[in-house]
């Protein structure tokens, strides 16, 4: 027989109610409850409190739960999209396309060659021609983009590099003077495709490939931290990576490596 001093604690009573005791302890508690009205009364009070809480909880929250029809349909659609094999899709903004058309028409009317096809101009170009390199992405979601294995750019095949030079009218360009770079880095879901590649001049001293790399790392960090939507990051870098750099680093000039990090 248990004495007054050896009553069960509230924690033991609660664990007994919740079925959280080991078989040995459960047997001990059961034997005690059979003998002790005080502990049984206390256990009933605990059960009453649980009942009061559950009633309040359900009455408070259940009326606020909307029908599952819409969310279920949305989930099914998103699952179908995820389950489908990855496919290419273009994120060419209409504004960008319209701007490219206006530029092309202007160049034609004033009797000039397409400016990016002029070797002299190519050397100075720091952003790609939007009509040739609008940016292309692979259909990946944030979690796939943020996988650790997706941090490095893939090497661009030599044959594909030649096609990029052809597109830009730079067949005679010295290979060592340019890096064929991704406009939207694969680390942000950019596609390994000619529409996402452009010849970036090594001669660029200010807005160069290293600066763009810093922007890519920064945008990826923001996306993976949930602070920036993936589609927005892709669009910003594809539209004008220099403007994107200024915007996300709050500066008009490239930061040093230490500042950027």
């Amino acid at each position, binding site marked *: 027989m248990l004495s007054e001093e050896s009553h069960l604690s509230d924690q033991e009573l609660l664990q007994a109610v919740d079925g959280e005791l080991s078989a040995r302890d459960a047997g001990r508690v059961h034997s005690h409850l059979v003998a002790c009205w005080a502990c049984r009364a206390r256990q009933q009070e605990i059960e009453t409190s649980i009942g009061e809480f559950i009633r309040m*909880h359900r009455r408070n929250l259940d009326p606020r739960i909307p029908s599952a029809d819409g969310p279920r349909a949305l989930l099914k659609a998103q699952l179908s999209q995820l389950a489908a094999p*990855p496919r290419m899709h273009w994120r060419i903004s209409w504004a960008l396309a319209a701007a490219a058309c206006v530029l092309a028409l202007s160049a034609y009317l004033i009797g000039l060659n397409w400016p990016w096809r002029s070797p002299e101009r190519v050397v100075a170009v720091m952003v790609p021609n939007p009509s040739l390199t609008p940016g292309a992405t692979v259909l990946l979601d944030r979690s796939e983009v943020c996988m650790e294995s997706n941090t490095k750019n893939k090497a661009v095949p030599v044959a594909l590099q030649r096609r990029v030079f052809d597109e830009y009218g730079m067949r005679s360009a010295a290979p060592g003077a340019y890096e064929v770079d991704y406009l939207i880095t694969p680390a942000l879901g950019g596609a390994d*495709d000619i529409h996402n590649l452009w010849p970036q001049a090594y001669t660029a001293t200010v807005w160069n490939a290293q600066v763009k790399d810093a922007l890519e790392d920064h945008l990826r960090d923001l996306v993976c931290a949930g602070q920036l939507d993936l589609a927005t990051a892709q669009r910003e870098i594809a539209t004008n990576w220099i403007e994107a750099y200024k915007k996300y680093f709050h500066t008009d000039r490239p930061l040093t490596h230490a500042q950027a990090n």
Partner: protein
Amino acid sequence: MPGLPTESNAVVALSAPDVCRPSPSSALEQEVVDLFEQWRNPLLRYLLGSSLAVPDSEDIIQETFLALFQHLRRGKSRENLRGWLFRVAHNLALKKHHRNRRDVKNIPEPMTAGTDSFIDSFIDPAPNPEDQLATSQTQQRILAVVRALPEQNRWCLYLRAEGLRYREIAEVLNMSLGAVSLALERSLAHIARASQR
């Protein structure tokens, strides 16, 4: 030029790693939808209980089940998927709260005792006229007590209310089993005092 990749070749090359993944099946999609049917409301109650608005909570649930699909598609553990779902949803909710705190405008109106939203959300839409006053007063006191609990204790209570065992709660909240047990015991003691007043 011979040997140059065409655009369609480039697409194929790009897709090659994905082809190597376990092929997604409609059976897996259906399994995730079935789990959604089973756990959407408990998850939604848990998220709403943590003061998130309905649209934010629904977004988190979508993200949670999409993550579950990826988790299962990669052949990862199927052990205790209920605990897994609550853990992912809880972590996403923490992120959302963090973002909301940074953007004060987005913070949902907290349901504190004494405000209209508190009372409106609490009152049973079809109350029993005889018990309405007494019941609502008791339940208002309980709700006020629950909302005044330390955050961790409140989460323990909400997770237990959705049927999670102590071990699952401990994993979701990264607490010890003893701490979960103590949190529940203390919370219920507060509730008992509020309902007996």
